């Protein structure tokens, strides 16, 4: 069982954003199933399609391992900050907190063309979703996580091995962005996609630093 591979918090709640109409839906679906199997208490699945995410949420009910498990689903437009805020509000109102957020949406370029043939509008569209969409969701979820209490988990059998340490502080939350190997290298014909994923690395790292810079104990 997967929860034997890693320590897992059965009181945790996850927000998954994906996009079944925009071709990346396969990963979001598996993320919902994997976290249901791992034992989360709740999942809010947000998608561009109400029908698609309701179906995945329903399917997850045959896989979950937590007796308190509850899946919710909603529609979101990741290019719209107000839509994202409404999604985050729904998760917080439905589950009281958001422990994890996995962003599994993304779009490809409309056509594979040499760099100089790239359509500026397609560049804006791809970066608007793959980069700015992740920025907007991480920003909104980050605000919600900052407003909630940190979590401590029981170490179980792991606690027997460490000197008196029976619990571990795991903080307020964890966010994972599904990026691509195209964040690390380039391939021909996909300038907007490659750029969007390289830029997403910046979003991830910049967001990762806010655990330092927003700390009340860190001053300059």
């Amino acid at each position, binding site marked *: 069982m997967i929860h034997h591979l890693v320590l897992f918090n059965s009181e945790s709640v996850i927000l998954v954003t994906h996009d079944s109409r925009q071709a990346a839906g396969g990963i979001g679906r*598996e993320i919902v199933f994997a976290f249901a199997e791992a034992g989360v208490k709740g999942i809010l699945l947000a998608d561009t399609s109400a029908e698609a995410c309701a179906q995945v949420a329903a399917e997850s009910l045959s896989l979950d391992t937590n007796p308190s498990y509850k899946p919710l689903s909603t529609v979101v437009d990741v290019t719209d900050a107000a839509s994202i805020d409404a999604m985050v509000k729904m998760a917080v109102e439905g589950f009281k907190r958001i422990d994890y957020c996995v962003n599994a949406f993304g779009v490809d370029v409309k056509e*594979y063309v040499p760099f100089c043939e790239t359509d500026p509008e397609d560049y804006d569209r791809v970066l608007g979703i793959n980069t700015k969409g992740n920025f907007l969701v991480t920003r909104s979820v980050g605000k919600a996580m900052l407003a909630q209490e940190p979590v401590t988990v029981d170490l179980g059998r792991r606690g027997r091995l460490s000197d008196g340490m029976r619990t571990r502080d795991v903080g*307020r939350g964890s*966010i994972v*962005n599904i990026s691509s190997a195209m*964040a690390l290298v380039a391939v021909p014909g996909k300038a907007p996609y490659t750029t969007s994923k390289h830029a997403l690395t910046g979003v991830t*790292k910049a967001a*990762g*630093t806010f655990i330092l810079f927003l700390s*009340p104990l860190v001053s300059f």
Partner: protein
Amino acid sequence: MDLMGAGIRVNQVNPTWVRTPMFEEECRRVPATAELIRKLSPIKRAIEPDEVAAACVYLCSPSAVTVNGISLAMDTGLLIGPLLG
């Protein structure tokens, strides 16, 4: 509050080809993609979505509190560098 600060971790996973509708569309646009993967990839196939999901479970889990700001390359070693021979 300790040195964890706000205690919020942000990471990303960076897979090569993942068997998704986006990948299937790429194979439709560029039929040689499947053969390219067979030639380039040590596992000779696209990554399955469940393999990406498992990495996300780990990165979110209490077992990964020391992991922050990383890009987890899921590339079967393809990006190590040019493999000549």
